[in-house]
């Protein structure tokens, strides 16, 4: 019967204690609801912030790389033996040994004596893509032709393609274009 007695006694405790307890309970519940509400708001804000931060990254990753030649046309140009260039192995001097298996990749500078770079494989091409070497005029060899290419914005550009043939035994140059149309110079047009 002892538990029952305690229970009965609690039914008769000071009413002010009950009131105080219920009020305190409501206060704690309201605080908990506010915390949950703030927490929910913060979570939503954090999601938006995350999206705002990550969306530029996604845009960059999904952005197509700078316009690269896709289609391939091949033109063989016979370079006359008198077209020579300095011998050297320093790219910045413009001495580039041409071999017929080299690719020429064309940059989008029109009417400038910019030598584009060459690469023997895709990896080199990727690595060198943004290294544009300006060739001093004295190193410019025979004009092989022009190529018209388009950049990403659709602007068309005509580039001059020059040959550097330090070794006169190498007489043919295979120009392989990934994009654009090659117009051989009059000398080499057949």
């Amino acid at each position: 019967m002892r538990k029952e007695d305690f229970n009965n006694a609690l039914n008769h405790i000071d009413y002010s204690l009950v009131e105080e307890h219920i009020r305190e309970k409501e206060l704690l519940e309201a605080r908990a609801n506010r915390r949950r509400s703030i927490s929910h708001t913060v979570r939503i804000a954090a999601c938006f912030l995350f999206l705002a931060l990550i969306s530029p990254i996604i845009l960059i990753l999904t952005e197509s790389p700078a316009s690269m030649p896709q289609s391939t046309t091949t033109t063989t140009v016979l370079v006359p033996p008198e077209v020579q260039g300095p011998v050297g192995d320093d790219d910045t001097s413009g001495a580039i040994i041409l071999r017929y298996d080299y690719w020429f990749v064309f940059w989008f500078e029109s009417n400038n004596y910019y030598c584009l770079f060459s690469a023997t494989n895709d990896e080199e091409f990727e690595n060198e893509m943004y290294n544009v070497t300006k060739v001093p005029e004295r190193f410019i060899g025979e004009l092989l032709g022009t190529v018209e290419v388009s950049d990403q914005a659709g602007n068309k550009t005509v580039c001059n393609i020059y040959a550097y043939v330090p070794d006169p035994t190498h007489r043919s140059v295979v120009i392989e274009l990934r994009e654009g149309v090659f117009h051989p110079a009059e000398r080499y047009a057949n």
Partner: protein
Amino acid sequence: MGIFNRLRPPLNDCEIIDLYFARDERAIDETDKKYRKYLFRVAYNILYVNEDCEECLNDTYVGAWESMPPERPTYLKAFLTTIVRRVSTNRYNERTRQKRVPSNLTDSLSDIEYFMPDNSFMKEIEAKELSKVISEYIKSLSKRQRYIFMSRYYTAEPIDEIAAELSVSRSTVNKEIAFIKEGLRIALEMEGYTV
């Protein structure tokens, strides 16, 4: 019309009490609409059986109807809590006379059973005397301890729920309860209740 009643926001306490005083039966509907969930939870903590809880709710509304008037409580929720607790514990006592009842109240009372006065039966007046001692003891506790005592022994809430409400750990609540129990034992002994 019933649907619109449910959609309408609940009346405030004063308006509900006015309905009781006007002997308008809508008072019961409005009380049920506003406090049903809370009162059911209090009853369930004590009884653990849905059917019994439903009956206790009905008895609570009857008790409120019979009390108002003349009573005009300042805080309706607390007033209803005292009624539902009394009704639920009476039902609980009936059941425990026959067998042990699984409920939060059983757990909480087993904490203090060992030092409760070893009398065979206490009359209503003795219960009131004991309640005064308990009330004075509760008032001597800190705010948090008071909250824990009332939650644990008055509304029979589980310890995890109390811990969550106070944003403390379960072990903190257990420690406080241990302190409260010891203090209550001493308070009862000091008032002449033999342990």
